[in-house]
């Protein structure tokens, strides 16, 4: 049972809107995003319901749902959204708020997803691009699952899908700078 009443402004909605640059109120619950989303089947609540939950200020339920973490930000939903809502940005906004407030699901899945994100960002920061081999190795080590997907390695190696070295990009320095600026901005905003 959800109990609703007016208790001042919907601050959760406002925070999500501000972070995502989209207006969740625009959502008219058509469900096109749900049928578009490749992973909505694995979510606690599909994107349409997440929108409704934000509208109803069900903050706990929204942040504790695995949906925002499962979102691949593939943008298939927002590409098809008739109300022009940037749904991945909304999902990301909820995720960021959850990290800021340290209030998010504690499941192994979500933890692994967070680790994956961190490692990926670290790769970009170091090399200006993804270094697949190191990415995989680090992920397997940090998640303490050394032999995960190992059986695929020989085939992938033979096909050249996993280069052994990393080719540096021209603008690696610029990317590093971007990271620094972003971190600085984040500090300021806090």
């Amino acid at each position, binding site marked *: 049972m959800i109990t*609703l009443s007016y208790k001042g402004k919907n601050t959760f909605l406002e925070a999500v809107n501000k972070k995502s640059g989209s*207006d969740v109120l625009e959502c008219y619950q058509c469900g096109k995003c749900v049928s578009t989303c490749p992973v909505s089947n694995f979510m606690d609540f599909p994107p349409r*319901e997440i929108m409704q939950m934000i509208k109803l200020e069900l903050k706990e339920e929204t942040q504790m749902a695995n949906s925002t973490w499962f979102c691949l930000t593939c943008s298939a939903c927002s590409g098809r959204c008739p109300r022009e809502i940037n749904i991945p940005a909304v999902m990301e906004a909820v995720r960021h708020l959850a990290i800021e407030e340290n209030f998010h699901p504690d499941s192994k899945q979500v933890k692994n997803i967070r680790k994956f994100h961190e490692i990926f960002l670290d790769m970009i920061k170091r090399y200006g691009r993804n270094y697949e081999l190191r990415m995989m190795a680090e992920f397997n080590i940090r998640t303490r699952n050394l032999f995960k997907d190992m059986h695929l390695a020989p085939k992938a190696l033979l096909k050249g899908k996993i280069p052994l070295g990393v080719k540096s990009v021209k603008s690696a320095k610029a990317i590093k700078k971007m990271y620094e600026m972003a971190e600085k901005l984040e500090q300021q905003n806090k």
Partner: protein
Amino acid sequence: MARVGVFVCFCGANIADFVDVPTVVEEAKKIREVKFAIDYKYMCSDPGQQMIRDAIVQHRLTSIVVAACSPRMHEKTFRKALSDAGMNPYLLEVANIREHSSWVHQKDKKAATEKAGDLVRMAVAKSIANEQLHEISVPVTKRALVIGGGIAGIQAALDIADARIPVTLVERSPSIGGRMAQLDETFPTLDCSQCILTPKMVDVASHPYIELIPYSEVIELNGYVGNYKAKIRKKASYVNFKTCTGCGACWQKCPVKVPNEYNCGIDTRKAIYTPFPQAVPNKPVIDAEHCTMLLKGKCGICAKVCEKGSIDYKMVDEVIEREIGAVVVATGYDLWDATPYEEYGVGRYKDIINSLEFERMVSANGPTGGVPVRPSDGKVPKTVVFIKCVGSRDKAKGIEFCSKICCMYTAKHAILLHHKVHDSRAYIFYMDIRAAGKGYEEFVNRAQVETGAVYLRGRVSKIYQKGDKLMVRGEDGQLGQEVEVEADLVVLATAVIPYKENPALARLLGISYDKYGYLSEAHPKLRPVETAKAGIFLAGCTQAPKDIPDTVAQASACAAKVCGLFAGDTMKKDPMISTVNNEFCSGCQNCVQVCPYQAIVTEEIPLGHGAKEMRTVAKINEGVCQGCGSCVAICRSMAITLAGFTDPQIINEIVAI
């Protein structure tokens, strides 16, 4: 000796694919009276019509049979062809070999051809007995009666009067304006309702071609299209409108307080009152049910304070008569009483109101000065629940239709609530959002995005009290979870039902109405403005729930119909009507009973030539008779004949097969 011409049409492939047209022509030629028979691809085309015209002259034909489509389609076309050739148009017979043969017997070409031959034989036989008939001219009284002075009646009256046709506008309450005068703002533009309505009300009052009769009712309508006679009862207002200046001293001093209908009973008015400040005419009337002077003979304060001496306690109802040619019915709507919703506690909880009450509260000239308040404690509500489809679309409550306007005005109420009370939120329980109209969908989105109104899909199951809150329980269909809203105020969008006296009015006018009391149009799609009775038209919510734009459009359509009716000094009418042979009429009056158009009355005639004794016979009003033939069938003395369908004609047809 009759000389009949037969013209058989292929109708492209429509007839020719299933009926062997040349065979039908050969069959027709075998009939003794048929002097000419021919087929053609499209008989209704210009060359086809020319064939008929030429044949009439060449073969000196005395009647014509066209075997083609339904007479509904082209009877007029072919009649015109006959009269162009100098022949009486009613000597035409149409054998419908398309709808009655080729279309319905597509599997059996031989049988279809045989049937087409039979139909032609019948038509030929009938046409031999056809007589020359002539169109009837009926004089027209060029004055329209508009019943109801809401926006529909006002618009119809103004449009008719602008065509310089006199209009009598009858309104039952002391002022015109109707429901629209009670509204605050109107969707989807949020125009102030009064601001756009009152100029029209003033126009009505000052228009040289409009006779406004407020505080009165139509009590009788006799006659037929173009020639109606209406009796109008002017209720006693106890105020002489000619001398009254509308100063208002009387109602300021009146000591009797009565629930104010204009404000849905939220506040009170006096026993002598004008309904609202912008009333037209702005003259007070005395409510005879509550005035102590009229009830007990004591008080008389209003007469004392009136400087003009306009108060007249001895005034009585007056019946006036008007001769009119057409009627526009615009009696409007009421809101359904939601008391049967016991699960909502309607009537038990004070803080449940209907949407018109909410409308009055948020209206600047309303009883609360434009701020919604809880009727129980007068506090300004923060959480307001709007429930749509209360009564509407509820088979169990006997109302299966959609009231059409609730989705839009509820969105409007959500916006108005936000305008009047900034720190509040509207929760709207809905089943569907029906926003079909120009700018409507955008308006509903505006309510959601700008004001943050929360739409919850589901019907409310129950309302119960908890402290000073009303707990509204329903389902959020979007999340598939039960929700409960702690509401300060609950607003019900109750069903739109027709004016309660519609059935009585319909019987008085001789028109039909549906099971809800909405007056019936002649055809739901192609004649949405006319009724089945010629000369009576419908505008606004008297026919079905409608918003203001639709109502105004229909009212203007009524005006166009009335102006069309009055375009000439006389009206032309088909001569296929019944006549009574007084020699045979026994005066049983069975025909009076069966006539669906109330076209038959009785008259007294001398028993014999020069006799003093009188006897009763039926008399048919040729202006009203539509030629349905019911009276012919019921007449036991065979005294009634229907022109164009006489006994010899019908018997000929039967004998021919």
